[in-house]
């Protein structure tokens, strides 16, 4: 078995003049669970589309389990649950059990349909038509279709959008069991909490570039990791912005929050500036702020 599940080498993809993916290098090992994190338009879906062979790169190379994406799909090594917008993503008129049996029958080495239904929590729904299912049930059916192949690599594009909280939790529990079997999982999300909860490795995409790649804790450490908060009714935000290591200044009713890459230097600078202040507080930024700093970096410059 190849030591790499996925290798992207300098991959670009343009739509006309718009470069949705602007040079991505990425390597994924078996058993890894990776979150592709980024705002809408960052290039997440385009990247996943190229990994699945639905889109061809404008330049660069995508290798899935040592072969082309098309071949990997044809060999039944990849399963995917993609965004289906307002549609169900399922064939009208089909019954759940029938659909799973049909999909499994297309693969060379599928999971047994009964196993698929059980793992997706669909055993009791096998006789139902897909047209009348609820949002959470539909997502379980789409998940079932993704695992029919018994894939080495599972791809999910924003898998919990529109699900209620119990359904989200159920989804990630089921996925966790799959990851524990040594399958690689790549999912796109713009929910930070989801990336933090479900993935050990997070790749942050912004405007088609990878701007960070590592464990959630590293990402938090390497970027804007602290916030300095204080009250200073007379302070000029521009002066605060010029303090050492400050990335961003937020003001609200005379209270300021400074995002900083070096809280010590910022606080030292604040003392030396002789701006009167009170209620000084230094806190770790939540990943949410770290993420914002990462993805807005380009436009701030």
């Amino acid at each position, binding site marked *: 078995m190849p030591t790499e599940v996925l290798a992207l080498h300098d991959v670009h993809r343009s739509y006309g003049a718009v470069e949705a993916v602007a040079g991505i290098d990425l390597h994924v090992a*078996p058993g890894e669970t990776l979150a592709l994190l980024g705002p809408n*338009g960052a290039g997440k*879906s*385009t990247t996943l*589309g190229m990994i699945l062979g639905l889109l061809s790169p404008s330049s660069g190379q995508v290798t899935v389990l040592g072969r082309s994406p098309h071949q990997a799909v044809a060999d039944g090594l990849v399963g995917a649950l*993609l965004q*289906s917008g307002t549609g*169900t*993503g399922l064939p009208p008129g089909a019954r759940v059990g029938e659909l799973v049996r049909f999909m499994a029958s297309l693969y060379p080495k599928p999971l047994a349909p009964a196993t698929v239904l059980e793992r997706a929590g669909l055993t009791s729904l096998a006789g139902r038509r897909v047209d009348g299912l609820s949002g959470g049930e539909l997502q379980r059916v789409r998940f079932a279709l993704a695992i029919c192949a018994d894939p080495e690599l599972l791809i999910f594009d924003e898998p919990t959008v529109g699900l209620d909280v119990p359904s989200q939790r159920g989804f990630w529990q089921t996925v966790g069991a799959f990851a524990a079997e040594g399958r690689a999982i790549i999912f796109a999300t713009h929910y930070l909490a989801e990336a933090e909860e479900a993935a050990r490795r997070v790749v942050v995409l912004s405007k088609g570039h990878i701007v960070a790649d590592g464990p959630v804790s590293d990402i938090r450490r390497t970027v804007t990791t602290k916030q300095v908060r204080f009250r200073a009714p007379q302070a000029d935000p521009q002066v605060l912005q010029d303090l050492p290591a400050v990335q961003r200044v937020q003001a609200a009713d005379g209270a300021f929050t400074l995002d900083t890459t070096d809280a010590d230097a910022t606080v030292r600078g604040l003392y030396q500036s002789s701006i009167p202040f009170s209620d000084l507080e230094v806190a770790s930024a939540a990943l949410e702020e770290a993420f914002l700093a990462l993805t807005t970096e380009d436009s701030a410059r």
Partner: protein
Amino acid sequence: MTATIAHAARPHRPLLPRFLAFELRRLARRPSFLIWTLAFPVVFYLVSYSNPTNEAHARSSYGTTWPIFFMVSMCAWAAVSAAFNASGGRLAAERTNGWTRQLKLTPLPSSAYTTGKVLAGASLALVAALVLALIAGAAARPGLSAGTWVAVILACWLGSLPFAAIGIFIGLVASSSTAQPIMIAVMLVLNVLGGLLVPLQAFPAWLRDVAKVLPTNRLGNLGWNVVAHRPFNPVDVAVLAAYAVAFTALAAWRYRADDRRPIG
């Protein structure tokens, strides 16, 4: 790693029959849209099979009676309409809702996908032609032999293949909201210009020449020749086959082409 998972051990056989069986099961569950497909040709046949205006055309050009000639026309109409409806209209919706893309992520080849869709559409055309023949036969009592009945139905069935292929191509190109109007327009133009509504002899000469390259006219010819006991014309089959092959290939190419949806 995955050795403990229960695999469904199964030799890898061709995938087309599985896809076709799946499609047919789904079609069989929704027979309601056949009613819409059949409504026009049935009603039109019942109100105009006894109309004497076209009798002369039928006699002079095909040596048969208008009720028989027109029954073949409307059988062909029903087959064309069913083939279009069963293929393209449903497909555009499946493409928009994401199901077509999910299928692209399986080992099902594009050739098996398009062929399966075409055959499923033609199966519905067979049912439509049969129902129409039953109703028209009961109303007009044309007194055809069993062999002639079978030959007419067979002609409509096989002749519906190019229309299923055209429908699938439209379904793969158009959006779910435009597919239906496009298909209705294409079907009406093909059916009327092909001589299924009014015999070609009522057309000016140049329009008759146009009709000769239309698949609807060739489909009609297959059946009209049967009921008139005229020799079978291989050119009819060649034209129909050319349309079927060309549009199936175009559809397979369209199915393989880049999925332009993911942009975010």
